[in-house]
């Protein structure tokens, strides 16, 4: 059976570019905080939607799979950790540093792990989730490259616990920010890899992020009645607008299945056709750099 089904996502005529407003205005922050406690989306809906965003370790895994050479300058400087002055920025940074940490782990760069553990400790302490990390154990593990698998397991477990904690406190929006932060950092890395070595695989990887930005927008639409999320969504507008013109179509074929030792091995045979032009790639590159600078470096 073969069926062609196209995804057409209507182009949204979104105006405006990334806002350059500082998060450090205390009055705004207090107002935002009060509003955040009034997030009207049901916990169940937010919980379900959060699952449509990739976790930091998944993003780091995809970057490592691209087989590009390791580059430390792709990472958010660890020293920036203290600059994130409110919990929104800290949650975004936790996601960004989470990808960086995964990237270091998956590339066996234990030499840099300690400074990034410190960065994670700083932002997580301000977010009051540092109790979920066993930093001394992680520092010990980081001293030996043989422990990389354990470090990855522990890091993933910690991020899952933080996510559960935020959701149990009805602050699933902060979990969203962690995932948004990790996605921004991931797309920035894909872009830098593409600039160095533009393979079709990495181009497709950038193009298919349309799925994720659409999911992200769907969540931000639900919580944009909170001023902070309205501003955040505005910052994504320009990038979203570029992605609206990227076309993805799918051709479905029956998956191949076989049973091995009681396990069902399923090979998905769906074909994906991604139409992305060089101009769109350039525009994505410009916008993701602006966005990342705005979120992590300013």
């Amino acid at each position, binding site marked *: 059976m073969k069926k062609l*089904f196209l995804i057409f996502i209507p182009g949204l005529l979104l105006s405006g570019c990334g806002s350059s407003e500082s998060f450090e205005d205390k009055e705004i922050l207090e107002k935002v905080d009060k509003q955040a406690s009034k997030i009207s989306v049901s916990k169940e809906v937010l919980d379900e939607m959060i699952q449509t965003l990739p976790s930091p370790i998944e993003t780091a*895994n995809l970057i490592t799979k691209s087989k590009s050479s390791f580059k430390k300058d792709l990472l958010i400087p660890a020293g920036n950790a203290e600059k994130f002055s409110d919990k929104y920025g800290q949650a975004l940074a936790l996601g960004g540093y989470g990808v960086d940490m995964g990237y270091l782990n998956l590339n066996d760069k234990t030499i840099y792990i300690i400074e990034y553990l410190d960065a994670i400790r700083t932002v997580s302490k301000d977010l009051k989730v540092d109790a979920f990390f066993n930093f001394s154990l992680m520092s010990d593990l980081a001293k030996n490259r043989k422990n990389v698998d354990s470090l990855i397991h522990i890091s993933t477990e910690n991020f899952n616990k933080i996510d559960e904690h935020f959701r149990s406190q009805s602050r699933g929006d902060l979990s969203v920010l962690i995932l948004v932060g990790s996605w921004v950092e991931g797309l920035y890395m894909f872009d830098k890899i593409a600039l160095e070595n533009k393979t079709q695989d990495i181009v497709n990887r950038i193009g*298919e992020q349309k*799925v994720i930005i659409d999911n992200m927008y769907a969540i931000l639409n639900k919580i944009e009645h909170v001023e902070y999320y309205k501003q955040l969504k505005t910052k994504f507008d320009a990038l979203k607008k570029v992605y609206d013109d990227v076309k993805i179509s799918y051709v479905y074929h029956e998956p191949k299945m076989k049973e091995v030792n*009681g396990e*069902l091995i399923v090979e*998905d045979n769906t074909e*994906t056709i991604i139409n992305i032009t060089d101009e769109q790639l350039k525009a994505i590159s410009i916008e993701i750099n602006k966005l990342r600078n705005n979120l992590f470096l300013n």
Partner: protein
Amino acid sequence: MKNNIYPRLKKFMIIITSFVIFYSAMSFNTMKKKECNSEQLLSKGFDRLKKYSLIKGYPFSFNEKKKNKPVEYLKQIVTLNRGVKYKFFAVPNDDFEGQPVITIHNNEKQEFLLATTYNFNFKKFYDEINFECKTTGNYCLSFSFLDGKEGCAVGIMAFLE
């Protein structure tokens, strides 16, 4: 006459007390049996991962379905990435009768069934699904219990590093 009442009353009280103790013990056992601790199940699932990294555990539990009612299920949209090998399996609480079933459909509308831990044609269970994803996109997972039996389990989603 009055003398006969006390032994009878005593006997009656012993019977009543025995009943109370018996039913209390029964209900305690039932409560204990019905306990659905997802933390323990998740921990068991973690031990089965080997080279895979946990993405998420999905606790799910349902009461036995009523006659003429559809089987209840937990539906979850997730995004899977092209080129990644995913593993899905369920860790059931064996105190419950329900045998967990996980299915994967291609999108939110559940147009095509891509994989399931239970083959309805052959009435066969698979321990887990290893899914090699070729298309980045939204997929629909569903978690239920075979024939709508009462059950308690955690669904595990993991990826190969």
